[in-house]
């Protein structure tokens, strides 16, 4: 049960982080997107700062709770390599749509009206 509670708290922190980044910088806290853009050399300063913070996160955990977070990785090395490749590749395939359409400055949103328009 404590695992569920800490999961909930951890999740709320993740949500807080995402909300913070959206409200202050207007950016989505998607790690694969940020890493992908870093690899392409786009938007480096903010992305690098976010990634650096992400790496610092477990160190903050260590300072607060006095131990490192637990990591058990049962998968064998080839599985790790194949899985990592699939995750990276899949994240790019899913994002190709936006790279292909990223030409105009005023993107068209389907569904939610994100454009500054008076709420009705």
């Amino acid at each position, binding site marked *: 049960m404590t695992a*569920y*509670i800490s*999961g*909930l*708290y*951890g*999740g*709320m*922190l*993740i*949500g807080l982080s*995402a909300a*913070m*980044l*959206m409200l*202050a*910088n*207007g*950016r*989505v806290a998607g*790690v*694969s997107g940020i*890493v992908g853009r870093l*690899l392409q050399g786009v938007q480096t300063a903010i992305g690098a700062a*976010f990634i650096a*913070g992400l*790496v*610092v*996160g*477990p*160190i903050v*955990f260590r300072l607060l709770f006095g131990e*490192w*977070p*637990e*990591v*058990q*990785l049962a*998968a064998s090395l080839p599985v*790790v*390599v*194949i*899985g*990592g*490749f*699939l*995750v*990276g*590749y*899949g994240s*790019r*395939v*899913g994002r190709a*749509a*936006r790279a*292909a359409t*990223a030409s105009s400055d005023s993107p068209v*949103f*389907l569904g939610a009206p994100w454009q500054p328009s008076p*709420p009705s």
Partner: protein
Amino acid sequence: MSTSAGFRVAVALVSGSIFGLGLAISGMLNPARVRGFLDIARDWDPTLAFVLGGAAAVSAIGMSMARWMRKPLLDERFHLPETQLIDRRLILGSAIFGAGWGMVGLCPGPAVASLSLGVPKTILFLGAMFAGMAAYDHRLGVGPWRQAIVASIASGGAVCFSLGLLGGGGSILAVPLLLYVVGVSNTHVAIGTSALERACGIRASRAGRERVVAVRHRLRRSRNIGCTRCLVGREGRRWRNFALPVRPRDGRRRSDHAASESRPRRGTRSMRERAG
């Protein structure tokens, strides 16, 4: 402007570390936890659902606030994904992503965050993930990925057909096909890819070949017949012709038959007879 840029970087840093701390507290840095959630067959661990719930609840508040703002606090406009359309490409990408995620139990966030823990396997995972991203970005280009995939499958089929028909024409076809049909721009990449494919293909087919030889070995040893693997018959004589002898029709024991100097027939046919 520069102060605002500095603030943006600072916010990103703080936001990232809160993200990482949240991942650590929630236990999501632990791939075993994540796989416990994804693997519903064995004793299921619903922690990930709580993490998702908490994250979605808090970020939903933030998102609804953002919806009422004309621009973010520190920037000129919101930088959102240009499309929110769920299309086939997104589903395909998510499926590939999910396959890797399920195999290892790591996704980009925890993989990056656990860099500070220095676990070799997660570092390896990150490297493979970068390779996957780079492979997509550089080899296929971003635009005509579908044609490229179709062209690669067609070229692969042509290479396999030629190999099956002639026993040759693998790499000699693969390089020009990669260059002109698939559209790899760099010759060296094409040569390297073809060499890599050859290495993997040979390694893979060698496993099948070894299994065949092992089965034949056990079959022949159990019947006291000489074998290509050990090259020695039951009597210690070197087996010359690598083939099974004719099925004895006159009731002699096979070992006797094998010992005689009669010329054996080709292996496959007599093996088929033996099985039938």
